[in-house]
């Protein structure tokens, strides 16, 4: 085969890889996953084959709890690490895990990542 053709194919493949890597699995950021009950803000994240929604927007300045839902989750997303609140745990295969986030400050996003670093999610806090 011609070298030029091969180089073009290579570049094409690199673009495809870029799309695979940067593309959001499903942009559910609009999904309503935040609820305020009795003065406490609950943020729900589903953990299975990644975290959804990938980016959430929540309120700062009120007591906040993060609920991570697993449903027969065996992959990396079960091994959750949230460094800013010192949380490191392998979640139950199916169930809900409640993590106390205290009172988040505006402009300090919270990041959760799975133990192997393949999946992550972010919660932005604003006023």
């Amino acid at each position: 085969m011609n070298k030029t053709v091969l180089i073009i194919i290579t570049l094409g493949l690199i673009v495809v890889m870029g799309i695979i890597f940067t593309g959001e699995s499903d942009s559910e950021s609009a999904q309503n996953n935040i609820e305020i009950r009795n003065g406490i803000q609950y943020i729900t994240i589903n953990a299975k084959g990644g975290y959804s929604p990938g980016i959430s927007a929540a309120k700062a300045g009120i007591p906040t709890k993060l609920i991570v839902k697993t449903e027969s989750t065996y992959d990396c997303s079960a091994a959750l690490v949230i460094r800013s609140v010192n949380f490191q745990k392998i979640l139950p295969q199916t169930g809900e895990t409640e993590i106390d986030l205290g009172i988040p400050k505006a402009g300090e996003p919270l990041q959760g990542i799975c133990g192997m670093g393949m999946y992550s999610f972010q919660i932005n806090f604003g006023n």
Partner: protein
Amino acid sequence: MLKKYTFHVTGTHCASCKILIEDILKEQDFVKNARVDLKKEIVEIETDNNQDAEEVATFLTNKLKPNNYILSVEKRLIEKENDLSAQADDVIWKAIPIGLVFLALFFLLQKSGILNLGIGGKTTPATSFIIGLIASVSSCLAIVGGLVLSLSAKVSQDNVSDKKNFILFHLGRLFSFAILGGTLGLAGNAIGINFTFTAILGIAASLVMLLLGFNLLGLFAKNKVTFPSGIFQKVFSVFRKIEHKTFTPLLVGFGTFFLPCGFTQSMQVAALGSGSLLSGFLIMFAFALGTLPMLLLLSFGPASFAHSKHAPLFFKSAGVVVVGLGLFALLAGLAGLGIINPLFNV
């Protein structure tokens, strides 16, 4: 009286070749001194033997044959080598797209969500076997599989038939999973598997993959990295010695228990929760058994390509895949440790 000979050497593909050739040559009674220059690809020996150079070269080549080195008086195959390097240039341009196609397919598979099958209910040996099958094509393959592929491709490229080592590796893996699983079941929750520890282990594995991957691509072949003598030579010769010991592959198989893999960790938790030696043992054993078919393919596949005419293309493509997986594992590991921001969501 000592006589000095200079020979051309072919087949030197690595920095440790220097040490190996010198060791073998010095073992011969009549060789008083031997020195290898990898850059010039020549070997100088001093001997009290009075044979002519051709005979000495033939005799020593016979000693070096098992390791695939050839000594000659005349510089060999100069034209053929030039030919080969032109060919190698072409091969790399074919290998890069082939490797990238495999990488793209692999990551697409992760992204597709096919692997997130719902396996509900209690973890039994049967379900953990199925989870093992899934894990063996999941992102865990990037680390354990990439490591196995890089090792086996390297080994077959070097023409060492090392079936025994891989069988030991897989036996070590099966048994350590079973035994550690049993221990977890028995201990309840005494052993916490530390995330930071597994992440560091994963980064170490990814570095090995990158090194072997570049090696497969032949990037080190042209300007061989020669380690400064002294401490590095000592480390290398120790490394060479333990490489051939039986316990090494067993130990590496044992080590894969701790490599970062979400599936393995979930199974470890399931074994912990199972509450008994036997059920923990069975869960982890079934899981390791489930990952076996894919890993066996990666271990023994390269050997069957090693002697076909597509061998160079295969090894270079494998090199591209291994480098890609190694980079992925490295970046993911660094992100997992919180050193860099996560760059991707696979």
